[in-house]
């Protein structure tokens, strides 16, 4: 690889766009955080509901629905998608990962239907008013930032309420929750619904940003969401340690999304083929998941005990 051929200016000029994309994915990651961290539910619905959000938003906008309303509709359809997964899991006893996969696969067909059988649908920023667009990155940064911040504030409030506390208890200890009168099936369905609502909203934003929705735009989004959650957590805990409260955690999830896209920008700038990006993402997530585990293990290992015991 010829490093001299790399122009630092192209990296810097791409940076704001990467950040804007990172914020949008960060919103998606906040949805993943709700299920993965609070409910301890690995929800794979998101790969489908992310594209659903994009499809709903674009189809409504090109039919002259104002983009904020279209985004709200995307959120609503995402709620329904999450609810389906929740019902498959709670009412029909399907294990969490499988319930998510079933919804995800079903959504692929649903998404094609929404887009009138086409694999992608364009929405031009020249013809319609869009909330975010890669053609207007400063505006996208501001709008995306406002969305992310508003969502974090609302969730911070929500998880402090009685309902939100019940959800946190459900994720932490289902037996205790039932003994305290919490209907854990309904809290699970509610969390999955809200999570996928956010994921779909994020998909609706990304479709506007890139100027089209694509039936495959959600593929692997769970991994990107997890990457953001984990990068944000590692960074937040490194910087703030125990002082990192719930608000900080949510904020760092979005920051994790931004960092992820900056890293992606750098990797692409280094002329890595974009086809290898998903492999790269999977490796990042695997490493970030493995590091805390291995670190704990190295402090508490048989090898270490053997060394000490041999003396």
């Amino acid at each position, binding site marked *: 690889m010829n490093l001299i051929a790399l122009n630092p200016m192209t990296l810097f000029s791409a940076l704001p766009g990467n950040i804007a994309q990172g914020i949008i994915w960060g919103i998606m990651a906040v949805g993943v955080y709700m299920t993965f961290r609070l409910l301890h539910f690995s929800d794979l619905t998101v790969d489908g509901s992310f594209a659903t959000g994009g499809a709903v938003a674009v189809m409504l906008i090109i039919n002259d629905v104002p983009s904020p309303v279209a985004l709200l509709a995307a959120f609503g359809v995402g709620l329904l998608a999450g609810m389906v997964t929740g019902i498959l899991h709670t009412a029909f006893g399907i294990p969490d990962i499988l319930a998510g996969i079933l919804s995800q696969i079903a959504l692929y067909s649903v998404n094609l239907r929404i887009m009138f059988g086409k694999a992608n649908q364009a929405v031009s920023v020249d013809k319609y008013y869009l909330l975010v667009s890669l053609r207007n990155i400063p505006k996208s940064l501001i709008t995306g930032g406002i969305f992310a911040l508003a969502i974090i504030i609302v969730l911070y409030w*929500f998880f*402090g*309420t*009685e*309902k*939100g*506390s*019940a959800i*946190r*208890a459900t994720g*932490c*200890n289902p*037996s*205790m*929750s*039932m*003994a*305290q*009168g*919490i*209907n*854990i099936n309904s809290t699970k369905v509610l969390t999955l619904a809200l999570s996928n609502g956010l994921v779909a909203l994020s998909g609706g934003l990304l479709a506007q940003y890139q100027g089209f929705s694509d039936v495959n735009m959600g593929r692997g989004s769970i991994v990107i969401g997890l990457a953001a959650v984990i990068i944000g957590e590692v960074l937040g805990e490194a910087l703030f340690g125990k002082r990192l409260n719930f608000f900080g955690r949510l904020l760092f999830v979005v920051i994790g999304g931004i960092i992820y896209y900056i890293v992606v920008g750098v990797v692409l700038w280094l002329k890595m083929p974009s086809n290898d990006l998903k492999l790269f993402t999977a490796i990042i997530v695997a490493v970030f998941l493995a590091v805390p585990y291995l670190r704990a293990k190295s402090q508490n290992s048989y090898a270490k005990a053997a060394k000490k015991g041999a003396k």
Partner: protein
Amino acid sequence: MLEITNIQKTFNKGTINEKPALCGVSLHLKPGDFVTIIGGNGAGKSTTLNAIAGVWPVDDGSIIIDGENITGYPEYKRAQFLGRVFQDPMTGTAATMEIGENLALAARRGQSRGLRWGITRAEKEQYHEMLKVLDLGLEDRMSSKVGLLSGGQRQALTLLMASLKKPKLLLLDEHTAALDPKTAAKVLDLTNSIVNKNKLTAMMVTHNMKDAIRMGNRLVMMHEGQIIYDIEGEEKSKLHVSDLLAKFEEVSGGKFANDRMMLA
């Protein structure tokens, strides 16, 4: 207060692992009754408590609490009537949530949970006072995660949570079995004081026959899914461990009581 009539439960029905666990258990508790339940392993003690709590539906029979037939209620719906403390100190509390938050969850047992604050300032002050009474120093650690507490502290907290909203019936399922003797004694004292102060109706499963005699006003012995001995008041307070052992030997057909009962 509690009327259970002829409840039956068989696990794994129709399989080779079929096991009749409750074979027609009937028990009638008056308000303020504090019953201790003893019996060998597999006698149906914990199963009876689980039947009342609604961990699964019973096959037959009825469960009535304070005039309300709860036989068809799912577990979370029965919680409004019940306070529960489990054998495993990890079961009764949410480890990743704060001490105050756990209490606040318990304070809303039986209420619909909406968008009001999960814990209010006034509640925090109230819990602070309540925790002080436990004398475990928890009142100054209200924002600590429960996962940091010891088993004894967690059981004490669970007891407080179970009685925070006065339950119609307090179910204690071997709640000191996982604790060291000193801590167990402390938790039992706390149990007594909480039951007496709030005039609670309570059921306590135990393997310790001395505790079973010392605590409460009534004692029930179970064997093979049935109540075989039910004694209360004056008569109960005169019991000795040897009486219970004799009784146990009698029903188990000369077979000796299991080790845990012997050692207790």
